[in-house]
C-alpha cells in the first residue's frame, strides 16, 4: 500500500487514456458491425424500386420517388397518428403505474421479493403468448366481458370496434411492460442515499417534500432513460397488435401503426424499396423524438 499520495496505476502503461479506449472498443466494434450494414443496405434500397421478386440487375434507382410518394400519401401519415395514439398513452401509464409500484415496493415488508418477482413475470413472457391469451380473454363473450356483465355492465367490443381497439392494445402493452418501468424505478430508487431521508425527517419535512426534493431528482434521469427505451420499443412493436387484431391492425385498420404498415408494404406487397423508405421515415421521426427526450434528460441531470 502506497502512502505517498500519488496515484499509481497497477500497470503503469495503462493510463486512463488507454483505459477509456479499451473500455469503449468492444461495444463500438460490435454495434458498428451489426448496425451499419443493415442501415446502409436499407437506405440504398429505399432509393430503388426493389421488390422481393426483383432479380439482380432489374433493380432500378428511383431516387426520391418512394419518399415523395409516401410523404404525399394521407394514409401513410395516418399511420403515424395511430402510432401516437397507442404509444403515448402506453408509455405514460407505464411510467406512472411502474413508478408507483416501485414506491410501494420500496419499503420493507415480508415477501416483497416474491411479490416483485411475480409482478415482473408479465414482461418475461413471450409477447405472442401474452397477446394470444389476452385476445382470448377479450372475446365478445370471453372472460373479461363475462365478469363485466356479472357485475351488471355492458360487454365491451374490445377487439372489433375501431374506437376501442387502440385502447385494447394499450391495455395489453401496459400489462406487459409496466414491470419494465418498475424495474428501472427500483434501480433509481436504490441510488437515493438513506441519510438524506433521515436528515429530512429530522427537519420534519413532509412526505411530499421528501418525494419532490430528494427522490424525484435522483430517480428522474433513470426514469427518462426508461421512457426513451420504452418509447422506442413501443414505436416498433407489431407482434402484439398482429396477434390481437390481425395483420392489418383490425377493424378499420384502427391499430395499423407505422411498423405494421412497413410490414405490409415490405413483406405482403413484396415492395422492399418502398418499405425501406417508410422505415427510414420512421427512423427520422423517432430520432427527433429521442433527441427531445434526451434534452429533457440532460436538463434533469442538471
Amino acid at each position: 500500500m502506497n502512502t505517498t499520495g500519488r496515484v499509481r496505476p497497477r500497470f503503469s502503461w495503462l493510463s486512463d487514456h488507454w483505459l477509456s479506449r479499451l473500455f469503449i472498443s468492444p461495444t463500438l466494434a460490435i454495434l458498428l458491425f451489426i448496425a451499419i450494414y443493415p442501415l446502409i443496405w436499407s437506405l440504398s434500397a429505399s432509393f430503388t424500386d426493389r421488390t422481393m421478386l426483383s432479380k439482380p440487375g432489374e433493380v432500378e434507382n428511383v431516387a426520391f420517388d418512394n419518399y415523395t410518394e409516401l410523404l404525399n400519401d394521407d394514409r401513410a401519415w395516418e399511420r403515424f397518428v395511430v402510432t401516437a395514439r397507442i404509444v403515448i398513452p402506453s408509455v405514460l401509464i407505464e411510467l406512472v403505474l411502474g413508478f408507483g409500484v416501485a414506491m410501494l415496493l420500496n419499503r420493507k415488508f415480508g415477501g416483497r421479493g416474491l411479490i416483485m418477482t411475480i409482478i415482473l413475470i408479465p414482461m418475461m413472457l413471450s409477447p405472442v403468448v401474452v397477446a394470444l391469451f389476452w385476445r382470448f380473454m377479450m372475446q365478445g363473450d370471453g372472460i373479461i366481458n363475462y365478469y363485466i356483465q356479472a357485475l351488471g355492465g355492458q360487454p365491451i367490443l374490445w377487439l372489433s370496434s375501431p374506437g376501442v381497439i387502440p385502447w385494447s392494445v394499450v391495455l395489453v402493452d401496459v400489462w406487459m411492460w409496466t414491470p419494465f418501468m418498475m424495474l428501472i424505478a427500483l434501480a433509481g430508487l436504490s441510488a437515493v442515499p438513506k441519510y438524506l431521508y433521515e436528515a429530512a425527517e429530522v427537519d420534519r419535512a413532509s412526505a411530499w417534500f421528501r418525494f419532490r426534493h430528494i427522490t424525484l431528482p435522483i430517480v428522474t434521469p433513470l426514469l427518462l432513460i426508461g421512457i426513451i427505451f420504452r418509447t422506442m420499443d413501443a414505436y416498433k412493436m407489431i407482434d402484439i397488435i398482429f396477434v390481437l387484431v390481425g395483420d392489418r391492425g383490425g377493424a378499420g385498420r384502427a391499430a395499423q401503426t407505422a411498423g405494421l404498415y412497413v410490414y405490409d408494404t415490405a413483406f405482403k406487397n413484396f415492395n422492399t424499396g418502398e418499405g425501406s423508405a417508410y422505415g427510414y421515415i420512421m427512423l427520422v421521426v423517432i430520432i427527433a423524438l429521442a433527441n427531445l427526450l434526451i434534452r429533457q434528460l440532460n436538463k434533469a441531470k442538471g
Partner: protein
Amino acid sequence: MRIAKQAGFYVLLGVVLIFFTFPLYWIVASSFKDRSDVISATPKLIPFIEFTPTTNNYRDIFFRAEATTGTGSTVTASADISAFRDRLLNSILITGASTLLAVFFGTLAAYAVSRFNIPLENDFMFFVLSTRMLPPIVVLIPVFVLFSDLGLRDSYFGLILLYTSFNLPFVVWIMKGFFDEIPSEYEEAAMIDGYSRFQAIYKIVIPEAIPAMAATAVFSIIVSWNEFVLANFLNRDSASTVPPYLNSIIGVGAVEWGRLAAAAVVFVLPVVIFTFLVRNHLLRGVTFGAVRR
C-alpha cells in the same frame, strides 16, 4: 391514521397484484386443462371443482407431440419430438452468453463515458441508442443476407453476437445514467489511498452498481430469451431457440391452448428463477451514505 395508511397501502398493493396476476393465473390454469375446458362458454377457474386438471399438456411438450389429423388418426409430428428440449438448451446457451457479454462490455463502456473524457461523447451515446431504433422487420433482409454471406446462419455465434448488439444500448445507457449519479469522489479517494483504477472499480463502484447491473441483466435476458423474428429466420435448421417453436404450437387457427400454456409456463420458468435469485439485488434500497456532494 397509521392504520388507515397501512390498510391503504395493502389495498393498493392488492389491486395491483390482481391486475397483473389474474391473466397469469389464467395461463397457468389453462396449462392444466383439456382444450374443451379452456374454451368453454363459462370460464372455469377453480381446479377440481370446475374442471379436472390434467398433466397431458406438459407431457406432450416434453415427450411427445402428436397432431390429430382430420380423420382422427394421430400422426406424431416428427419434427417436434425432443425439439422443445433441444431448443430450451439452445435458448439457455445463447441468452446466457449474449447477456454476459452485453452486461460486461456495456458496463465498461458506460463507466468510461461517465468517468473519462471521451471525444464525441454525446455522438457516441446517440449512435449507441440509434442502433436500437430501426424496426427489426426492416433490417431482416440485410441481416439475413449478411449472415448468409458470412456463414453465420444456423450458428450459435451469429445469434449471440446479434443479441449482444440488441442489449448493449440499454446496458450502456442505464449504467451510464447510474454511474453519473454516483460521485466519482469515492474512486478518487480510494485511488489516493493507493488503489489502482481497476481495484477502485472492483471494490467501490461495482458493489454500488449491482442493482442497476442486475436490472439490465434481467432485461437483457428477457429480450434475448423471447426474441422471435430474427431467431426464426436465421436459425431455422440448427441452433434454434424456443420462441419459433412456441409459434408452431399455435397452429392454424384452432389453437392448442393447453399445450401453448404449458410451453409458455415451462419457458418462462428459468427467467423467473433467475430473477427470484437476484431479487435482493434488485430491491436493495440504500447504498452507502457517508461522503456526499
